């Protein structure tokens, strides 16, 4: 088969993006939209998994990257791994949305269209091989999520969150673009390979001239824009507001998939394209990592809204992942990739429970979690597994990925860059700090009696998804941690070239 068949998952999504508005002309039945989006996402997922396990039949080689569309689109182990995560998260969001929005909710075809186009943007970002494709992918996903955050037009909070997200997002994407234009100005290339070889040339003395200030400034600009996507301090101000205000399925997508997309872009730009000029950016990234885990955890302690608390915790998690980037070793990078993957599932699982509790009318404050275990043992258990995993308590998945992440970075710190050890110590101390607010939710769920009636019917879809998340985080990843780590190693080898 031709190698352009590797674009098939994206084509499936594009077809479905066009099909859902067309379906709206013929039928008012809201189930048809969700079925259409689920079918295309499942199709894309199956195709991605098949292309992972049977690469030969698709003329793909997992050890070598395949290029399509005149080298602008790169298919390798790294991109396929993250595409699987994006599609899986979007599938969970799409399934949850059906039970979250009731029959009378207007504009549902638009919602599913935007969900799919947001996923499409993330998949394009994962495969981008030049700065333009990367930027366009990020923007496709960002524009769809602006509209999804402001999706409930009559809801005051949703609209305000959408306006804030839009204005801050537009500002930071303009900053990224200016950074990219500076890179183009000094190198004359936009492809990652071209920029990478030019930067190597500066180090080897092949290229004349001193570009260090310009490279420093452009790294600062690019980091400002991508830092907005992954929500690290000081570009995090939007995250609590948006996570609180947006409809919870949209928050799930933002916290799980959109953050992973930001990390994909950061990895591609800093770890691959600009890796030979790491002296210019390693200190900025280290400071950002340390600041964002400390600020995130300290601010999360005093929150009373569960969405805001999880938003601050996800700022802190972004800080943990960031410590691996200045280390620039393959071990630290595979730890970072593993933690990004696991983070998508644990945050996604936590927000699925939050959305479910909110949708049955219990509200979004911490008090509404009092006695959740008496109402539904399964949901409380799913929440507990996700939270313990976020802290990094063994034997849950979060412990394994965090262990790889810290161990890889520590090893790089021992080998030379001794300031990396400070980052690792900061990360470990912060993990201990974060236990306080996660345990508070668990205490509310198990040790208190529910306010109001005990028997509340939770939708079945959410039960199955939370069961799946429990199995994934508490059974599957801990038992098969070796194969998880193999996958991440392969992805980091593909990433670092």
């Amino acid at each position, binding site marked *: 088969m031709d190698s352009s068949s590797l674009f098939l998952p994206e084509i499936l999504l594009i077809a479905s993006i066009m099909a859902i508005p067309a379906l709206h002309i013929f039928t008012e039945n809201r189930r048809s939209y969700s079925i259409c989006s689920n079918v295309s996402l499942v199709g894309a997922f199956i195709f991605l998994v098949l292309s992972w396990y049977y690469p030969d039949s698709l003329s793909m080689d997992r050890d070598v990257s395949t290029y399509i569309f005149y080298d602008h689109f790169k298919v390798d182990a790294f991109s396929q791994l993250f595409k699987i995560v994006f599609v899986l998260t979007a599938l969970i969001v799409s399934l949850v949305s059906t039970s979250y929005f009731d029959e009378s909710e207007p504009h549902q075809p638009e919602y599913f269209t935007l969900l799919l186009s947001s996923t499409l943007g993330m998949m394009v970002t994962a495969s981008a091989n030049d700065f333009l494709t990367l930027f366009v992918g990020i923007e496709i996903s960002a*524009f769809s999520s*602006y*509209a999804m955050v*402001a999706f409930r037009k009559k809801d005051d909070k949703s609209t305000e969150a959408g*306006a804030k997200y839009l*204005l801050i997002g537009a*500002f930071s994407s303009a900053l990224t673009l*200016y950074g990219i*234009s500076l890179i183009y*100005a000094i190198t004359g290339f936009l492809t990652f390979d071209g920029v990478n070889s030019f930067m190597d040339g500066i180090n080897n003395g092949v290229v004349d001239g001193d570009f260090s200030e310009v490279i420093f400034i452009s790294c600062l600009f690019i980091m400002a824009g991508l830092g907005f996507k992954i929500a690290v301090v000081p570009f995090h101000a939007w995250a609590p507001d948006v996570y609180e205000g947006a409809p919870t399925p949209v928050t799930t997508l933002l916290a799980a998939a959109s953050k992973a997309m930001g990390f994909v872009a950061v990895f591609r730009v800093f770890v691959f394209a600009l890796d030979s000029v790491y002296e210019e950016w390693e200190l900025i990234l280290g400071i950002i990592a340390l600041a964002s885990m400390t600020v995130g955890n300290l601010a999360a302690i005093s929150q009373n809204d569960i969405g805001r608390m999880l938003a601050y915790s996800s700022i802190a998690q972004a800080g943990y992942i960031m410590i691996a980037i200045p280390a620039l070793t393959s071990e630290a990078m595979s730890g970072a990739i593993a933690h990004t993957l696991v983070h998508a599932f644990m945050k996604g699982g936590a927000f699925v429970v939050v959305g479910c509790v909110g949708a049955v009318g219990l509200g979004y404050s911490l008090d509404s979690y009092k006695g959740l275990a008496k109402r539904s043992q399964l949901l409380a258990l799913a929440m507990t597994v996700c939270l313990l995993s976020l802290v990094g308590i063994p034997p849950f998945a979060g412990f394994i990925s965090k262990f790889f992440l810290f161990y890889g970075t520590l090893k790089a710190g021992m080998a030379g860059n001794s300031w990396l050890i400070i980052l690792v110590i900061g990360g470990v101390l912060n993990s201990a700090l974060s236990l306080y607010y996660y345990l508070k939710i668990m205490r509310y769920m198990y040790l208190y009696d529910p306010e109001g009636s005990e028997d509340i019917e939770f939708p079945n879809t959410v039960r199955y998804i939370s069961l799946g998340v429990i199995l994934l985080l508490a059974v599957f990843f801990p038992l098969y941690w070796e194969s998880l780590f193999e996958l991440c190693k392969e992805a980091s080898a593909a990433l670092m070239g």
Partner: protein
Amino acid sequence: MIEPINFMIFSSILLLIGAYGVIRNKNSIVVLMSVEIMLTAANVNFIAFSSYYNDLTGQIVALFITTIAAAEVAIGLAILLSLFKQRDTIELDLLDRLRW
């Protein structure tokens, strides 16, 4: 032939004007317009260095950015319109219902 440093100075002045507008203005629409100025600053860089390197990539990028900017304004105005319908204002200072 204009020296490339002049392009850089011009584009960074545009960027600063745009950033100043974003930070100082209270009106959301003016903020969106300032973001457009910042995108134009990047465009100036792309087009100038495209002609400097004799490489068409920069000009193609500029076309893409123009499209992206148009889409951004379309979505932005739609969201601001629904905000205006609810609150009769789009002043940024008044967006304070989501606070801790």
